[in-house]
């Protein structure tokens, strides 16, 4: 322990006990980020703030929500939405944020794919990020059940039913997950526990890992250039701010983040007040009825591409049943993005527009995912079913093709 002398200020007193000066340097003023970035680099902070909005609005919803099949719907749609002061505001914020967080996650994810920020030392950032995507998906799924509307019930029914496809233990597993033969009060309360406690805890842990994983490989930059961070940091500290290729997290990087964030919040709150049906589906304002299937069941938009892969296979192939094919494809789709660092056989870190083959792959993947998303919503009849089938095949084939494409690209010279 350092020899304690009388502190001359509160700051000094804290510094003697918590090393606040050193901490501030490490986490903020001497945490170096490349200067050659664009506003897409702000998506991480946008996600952080959206997550915080979800937690804070969630805290207030938690005061009035009742996790019981007889009380849940009314506790949300009467008590919170119409009785509690600003209850409607917190519910709208929570619902819209839950949807928008996925838009930003997809932008963030595709930024990483575009700039090759998942390889050459950054694999753990990528994996912890994909883990966060899976955790947020679980959080969204469990949260959607809570208002106990028609969509809550039927989405829960359909998705818990999927586990029945697992050989041998499937049927028993479904009953075990639900806590009953059918989606019931037991199911609601345990998913409430997951949504409010366990999954958020896991998310916070994964965020800590994700942030930590960034430190050693450092944040990427627009050109994929390998920067000597120590050298550039010294330039900056010596006063050569304009020549240095790096900027400190605080205040430079965050000042851009805060500007992007403020603009984002305008867009976000516009949706909260005036345009929220995409996030708060009208069908969910019908109370859950286990004996009445809605005419159209669909998950929230961010799950649609996945859902379409699940139901894209509607006929048996080579003796494997359609339902099983869909289940296998769906399982692959959940984890395949995790494997990006190893499927991409080119060591080049560069934006996609400088990688001739990868660039085609990137835009094709984006288009296929959008097609899957839109067709995941439409009724799967006639031509829709065929388009969905071919899009699912295309999605899988793109990942099969990636190693070959990128290996070729590496041989040809990459850039």
């Amino acid at each position: 322990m350092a020899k304690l002398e009388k502190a001359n200020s509160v700051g000094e007193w804290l510094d003697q006990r918590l090393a606040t000066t050193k901490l501030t340097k490490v986490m903020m003023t001497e945490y170096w980020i490349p200067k050659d970035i664009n506003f897409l680099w702000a998506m991480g902070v946008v996600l952080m703030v959206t997550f915080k909005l979800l937690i804070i609005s969630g805290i207030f919803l938690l005061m009035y929500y009742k996790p019981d099949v007889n009380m849940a719907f009314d506790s949300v749609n009467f008590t919170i939405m119409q009785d509690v002061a600003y209850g409607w505001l917190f519910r709208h914020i929570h619902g819209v944020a839950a949807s928008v967080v996925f838009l930003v996650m997809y932008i963030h994810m595709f930024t990483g794919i575009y700039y090759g920020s998942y390889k050459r030392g950054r694999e753990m950032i990528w994996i912890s990020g994909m883990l966060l995507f899976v955790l947020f998906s679980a959080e969204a799924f469990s949260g959607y059940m809570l208002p106990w509307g028609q969509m809550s019930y039927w989405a829960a029914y359909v998705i818990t039913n999927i586990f029945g496809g697992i050989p041998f233990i499937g049927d028993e597993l479904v009953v075990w997950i639900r806590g009953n033969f059918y989606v019931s009060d037991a199911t609601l309360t345990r998913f409430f526990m997951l949504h409010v406690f366990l999954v958020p805890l896991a998310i916070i842990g994964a965020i800590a890992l994700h942030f930590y994983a960034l430190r050693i490989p450092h944040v990427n930059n627009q050109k994929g250039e390998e920067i000597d961070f120590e050298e550039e940091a010294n330039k900056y500290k010596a006063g050569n701010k304009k020549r240095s290729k790096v900027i400190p997290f605080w205040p430079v990087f965050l000042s851009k983040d805060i500007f992007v964030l403020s603009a984002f919040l305008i867009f976000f709150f516009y949706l909260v007040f005036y345009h929220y049906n995409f996030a708060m589906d009208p069908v969910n304002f019908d109370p859950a009825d286990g004996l009445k299937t809605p005419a159209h069941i669909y998950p929230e938009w961010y799950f649609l591409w996945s859902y379409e892969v699940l139901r894209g296979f509607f006929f048996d192939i080579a003796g494997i049943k359609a339902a099983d094919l869909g289940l296998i494809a769906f399982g692959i789709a959940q984890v395949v993005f995790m494997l990006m660092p190893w499927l991409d056989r080119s060591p080049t870190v560069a934006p996609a527009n400088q990688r001739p083959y990868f660039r085609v792959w990137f835009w094709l993947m984006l288009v296929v995912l959008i097609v899957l998303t839109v067709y995941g919503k439409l009724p799967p009849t006639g031509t829709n079913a065929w388009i969905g089938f071919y899009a699912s095949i295309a999605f899988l084939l793109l990942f099969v093709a990636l190693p070959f494409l990128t290996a070729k690209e590496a041989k040809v010279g990459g850039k």
Partner: protein
Amino acid sequence: MADKSRRAFMGNVLAGVAGVGAVASLYAMKKTWDPLPSVVSAGFTTVDMTQLEAGKLEVIKWRGKPVFLLKHSADVKKDPARDVVIGNESYTVVIGLCTHLGCIPSWQNDKQIFHCACHGGTYDVHAKNTFGPPPRPLDIPPFAIKGTSLTLGEEGPEYKKMAQA
């Protein structure tokens, strides 16, 4: 030397003991997720089949699931492997949940099919899957015939024969 290996041995024994504790805890946690005894205790529902109209689908609730009861009109071909026969009448008795992803199909009497709105699956009058993603016919619940009544939840001899087929 002997000290090191004894220390390692003790460490391993401790790890083993901790492991046993962890497994026991996980077992207890798994059991806490199980459905409650009140849920597991078999639900039985008895239906008087004489009230049914031929061609008109009747839906009742059994263990929280919808069960379809459909009395066959005279022109429906017999299917001994799936028909529930009570006296001179044949019925289709199945759990009304599509075997694809669990939505409730609707009965279209004019086309003599069950149609599932979720992904377009169809079943014939015997609830055998005929088109689309459903992997198997609608499931037949355990039943027992008592005179002109049907008790769902109980495995009668007719059900046992069907289940073996």
